[in-house]
C-alpha cells in the first residue's frame, strides 16, 4: 500500500516537472545527435564505408545514406536543441534509433565484425579490436526510450515550441 502510494506521488512529481524532464531529454538527445553528426560530417567517405560495412543496403543506397546521414543528424540535433517541432524530431529520432538497433543487432547475428560507426570511424574491425555490440545496442535503446518519452511529452521549457505556445495562449487570454 505504502509502496504504491509512494509510486503514485513520484509519478505525480514526474508529471508536475515534465516540462523540465522533457527539457533534459531534449538536450540529451540533441547532444547525441550533434556529437554523432559532427564527428562524421568531415569524413563522408568513412561514413559511407561504415554504412557499407553493415551490408544491409546496396552500394549506391549506402553511399547516399552515408553521405546524407551526418547532415541529417546535425539538423535533427539543432531542431531539438532549439525546441522546434520537438514531437516530429523525437519521432524521427526514434525511427532512426530503431534502424540503428536493427542494423547492429543483425550485424551481431550475422557474425560481422564491425564498429557501429555511430561517432565517426566505423567499418570493419581488425582482428585485434573486439566488437561492442551490447554496449552500442544498450546505448541506442536508452536513446530510443528518451526519444519515445519526448514524443509523448514534447512540450518542454525554453525553445521555439514553448515560446509559440505561450504566445498563442497570450492571444487567447490577454
Amino acid at each position, binding site marked *: 500500500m505504502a509502496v504504491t502510494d509512494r509510486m503514485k506521488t513520484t509519478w505525480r512529481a514526474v508529471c508536475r516537472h515534465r516540462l523540465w524532464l522533457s527539457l533534459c531529454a531534449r538536450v540529451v538527445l540533441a547532444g547525441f545527435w550533434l556529437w554523432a553528426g559532427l564527428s562524421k560530417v568531415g569524413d*563522408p567517405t568513412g561514413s559511407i564505408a561504415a554504412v557499407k560495412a553493415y551490408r544491409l543496403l546496396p552500394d549506391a543506397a549506402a553511399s547516399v545514406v552515408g*553521405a546524407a546521414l551526418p547532415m541529417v543528424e546535425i*539538423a535533427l540535433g539543432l531542431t531539438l536543441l532549439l525546441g522546434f517541432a520537438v514531437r516530429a524530431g523525437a519521432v524521427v529520432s526514434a525511427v532512426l534509433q530503431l534502424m540503428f538497433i536493427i542494423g547492429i543487432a543483425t550485424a551481431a547475428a550475422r557474425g560481422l565484425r564491425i564498429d557501429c560507426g555511430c561517432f565517426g570511424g566505423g567499418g570493419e574491425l581488425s582482428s585485434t579490436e573486439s566488437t561492442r555490440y551490447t554496449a552500442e545496442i544498450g546505448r541506442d535503446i536508452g536513446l530510443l526510450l528518451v526519444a519515445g518519452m519526448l514524443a509523448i511529452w514534447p512540450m518542454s521549457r525554453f525553445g521555439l515550441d514553448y515560446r509559440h505556445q505561450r504566445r498563442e495562449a497570450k492571444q487567447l487570454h490577454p
Partner: protein
Amino acid sequence: MSQGKNHKKRARSARSSGGKSSAAKSSAAKGRPSSKPDASNTPSRSKPKRLTEQRWVDSDRIAEHRAAQRRRTRIYRSLIAVVILLAAGTVGWVVYRSQLPSGLPDNSAKPPANYAVPAGATRDGVPVGQTDAPVTVDLYFDFRCPHCRDYERATAQYFDKQVEAGTVKMVYHPISIIDGYSVWAAAAAGCATETNALPRFTREVFSQQDQLNREELVAVGKNVDLTSPEFIRCVQDSKYQNWALGVTQAAEKAGVRSTPSVAVNGEAVVPRPRGSFEEFIDDTKRTVADAAAKARKSQAEQ
C-alpha cells in the same frame, strides 16, 4: 507553463459544457415542457437560459476553431522540420558528390566482357613467385583498408622469405570494396605488375593510405623507382580500371566478403571469434607451414 495549463483547462471545460449545452438544445427542440414536469411552473426562465446556451455554443465553436487552427500550425511546423531534415541530407549528399574528383569510378560497377589484363596478371589477381610452389596463398586486400595495411606489414617479411625459398606462390587480389579510390589504386597496381613491381608498389601505397588520386599514385610509383613514361601514362589513364573491377567481381564470386581475406591452397583462413590480430597472423603462418609440410610429405612419398 501555468498559462498553457490554464488555457488547456478552460478549453476542456468549454468543450464539456458545450456537450451539455448541445444535449440541452436537442431536448429543447423535442419539446422541453413535456419532458420536464416542472418546466410548466417556470415558463419565464426559458428565455434567459436559451441566451446562455447560445453563448456556450458560440464559445464551443470558437474553441473548436482554435483547436483546429492549433492542430494545423502544429502539422505545418512538423512538416517544416521534416523538410529541414531532408534538405540537410540533400546538402550532405550534394556536397559529397561535388567534392569527388571527376572521373572517380564506381567501385561496384561491372566491367565489360573484354578488357586489358596487365602482363603477368590473370583476370582474378597477380601471381608472384614460382609457379610450381607447393603452397598457394591468396591475399585479398583493398588498398584503402587500414587492416589490410596492418596485415601486410605484419606478414610481409614472412611471405617474402617463403616466396624466395620457393615454398609459397602468392596471389595478390587488389579488390575494391571501399570506394573509387580503391579502383584507381588497384588499376595503378596493374600498371606496376607489368614490371614485376607489385609487392613494393603495394607496400608504398599502404604507407600513405589516403584518398590517392591518380597524380598522387604516380608520385607513389616514383618513390619505388617506377618512373618509366609507360607506367606514368598507364596510371594517369587508369588503363587497368576494368581489370580492377574484374578482380573485385572475381573475388566476390569466390566468396570474399571482407578484407583482408587469406586463403591457403584454396582454403580460407578464418579469424577466430574474438581472436586477436596476432592470432590471425599466427593462424596464417601455421596454416602455410602445415600446407608446406604436407606437400613435402607427399613429395617424399612419390
